[in-house]
């Protein structure tokens, strides 16, 4: 309807959004382009070549690093978002007491402490666990460390979403004798979903890119992709990393497209 569109239109906003998209994807286009560069340098183009893909597929180190990155990011996202959702529910839309303010500060603590401090402390803690009590979770150590800093990144968007939601729908459900759990599952959760998805996306991104905490907490065989690349900087980064990043990108786009079609199918 022309009227509805008119209502929502703000001058210039669409152009800004389009420019945003273009600018966001420009470096990605460059990244993909240079994965086909015959030259060893990540910064000069000579000719088209699939060499780096061949090398990447034969390079166990980089594949292992990519897999570990994804494993850890997935685990941290799932657990972090779940914990953050619970935390957001518990701290919004209620009377602002001292308790909520304290909870709010604590939840955002991992965001505020500089990473290196968290990294050293976490490493020392796990070392203590291992030498004192003999407990070690293997890759779980890294997953726990990632979950911790993913929580605030998931929490803030979910909370923002919750603060904007009105309660009438939930009260209506309660009036219709729905139990709190049912109200949550059928009314609250779907309404919160954009916030949860936003939070999960941010948590995933943050975990994938983490360097300092991972650098110190990862044990043998737990090198993630950022660590792998960082280690190469002194000796020259090769376009193999471009190739791996492009492959990962293609896989994630595929995954997302599948998710969409399944979603469409479900909805209809």
């Amino acid at each position, binding site marked *: 309807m022309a009227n509805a569109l008119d209502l929502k239109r703000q001058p210039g906003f669409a152009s800004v959004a389009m420019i945003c998209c273009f600018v966001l994807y420009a470096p990605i286009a460059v990244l993909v382009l240079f994965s086909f560069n015959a*030259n*060893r*340098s*990540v*910064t*000069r183009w000579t000719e088209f070549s699939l060499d780096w893909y061949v090398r990447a597929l034969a390079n166990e*180190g980089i594949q292992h690093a990519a897999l570990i990155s994804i*494993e850890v990011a*997935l*685990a941290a996202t*799932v*657990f972090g978002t779940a914990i953050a959702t619970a935390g957001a529910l518990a701290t919004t839309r209620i009377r602002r007491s001292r308790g909520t303010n304290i909870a709010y500060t604590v939840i955002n603590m991992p965001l505020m402490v500089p990473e290196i401090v968290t990294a*050293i402390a976490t*490493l*020392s803690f*796990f*070392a*203590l666990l*291992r*030498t004192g009590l003999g407990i*070690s*979770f*293997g*890759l*779980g*150590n890294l*997953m726990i460390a990632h979950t911790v800093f993913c929580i605030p990144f998931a929490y803030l968007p979910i909370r923002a979403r919750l603060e904007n939601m009105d309660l009438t729908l939930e009260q209506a459900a309660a009036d219709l004798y729905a139990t709190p759990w049912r109200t949550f599952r059928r009314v609250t959760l779907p309404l919160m979903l954009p916030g949860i998805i936003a939070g999960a996306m941010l948590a995933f991104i943050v975990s994938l890119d983490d360097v300092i905490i991972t*650098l*110190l907490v*990862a*044990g*043998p*065989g*737990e*090198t993630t992709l950022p*660590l*792998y690349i*960082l*280690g*190469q*900087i*002194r*000796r*020259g*980064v090769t376009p193999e990393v471009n190739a791996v990043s492009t492959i990962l990108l293609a896989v994630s786009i595929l995954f997302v497209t599948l998710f969409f079609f399944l979603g469409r199918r479900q909805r209809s």
Partner: protein
Amino acid sequence: MTRLFTTAAALVGLAFAAGQAFAAGELHIYNWGNYTSPELIEKFEKAHDVKVTIDGYDSNETMLAKIKAGAAGYDIVVPGDYMVQIMVSEGLLAETNPSAMANYKNVEARWKDVYWDPGRKYSVPWQWGTTSFGVNTAVYDGDIDTLAILFDPPEVLKGRINMLNDINDVINAGLRYLGHPRCNKDKAQLKELSQLLLSAKQHWRTMDYSTIEKLTSGDVDVSQNWNGASMRARKQIPTLKYAYPREGFTGWMDNVAVLKNAPNTENAKLFQDFIMDPENAALISNFARYANGVAGSDKFMDPEMTAAPEIIMPANAPAPEFVPPCDKEVVDLYNKVWTNLKK
């Protein structure tokens, strides 16, 4: 949603299970990134029936911080010369006595009694090299064998210089240019150094470790560099020349050492012995592009390496200087100079 949860739980469970015990016949190497020859590892794995994992770090300091804070599971680390002395004094390395190993006789005599490990009780040579700088002679073809290029550059090189982002490399170069000793406590001399660095900084474009990339992309024409990296850059910029400044330059050696709390000490010792063999040392050199410390490896090395001016120093070049770690007071002073430079 539930499916996602279960998948995630399964993944986590797998990870827990996988991380539990270190099976026998393993070796965990913690080395610089992209510094270990895959060929060498394959050969070692076959020869001794050992599964090897390699993880990479980006600097000695990261490795030290991590080991000090309690990271475990690594068997082998590859510290630089000064870092070996630090780790020995901190009690972090195991005394594996490479001097008693079978292949020890192959180590060149000059590397047997070094300041960081006299008599070689802890470590074995991996690679060694020099830190100086490279100049693109197509841009400037005058005399480059002097540190004046970095601190008082000719007009055409101003603003086209990259320095290493390393306290020691920058400060040591500055001290050499001024003719002052290394590990310097003299406040007056350090003040002079500070002023020199500040005035030279305006001619430096960047201070970064990715030297090859800076040169090949045309961002800079001069870069403080390690000799092997300079050689690799020369393949893309044939006019790049590695300088041997008469004021002096740093020599360094990376060494293979075993951690005290290593889970696989026996395999680690086997590895130390393995790399002292000339053929294997050559494998390392061919991959990492630096000299190794083992006699007789030349015949197995790439001919390009045995003739390179970066590896074979000209006769009139001063001897490379191996700088031991400085004591606390000096480190604090250097810190002040560095912060002052970079604020």
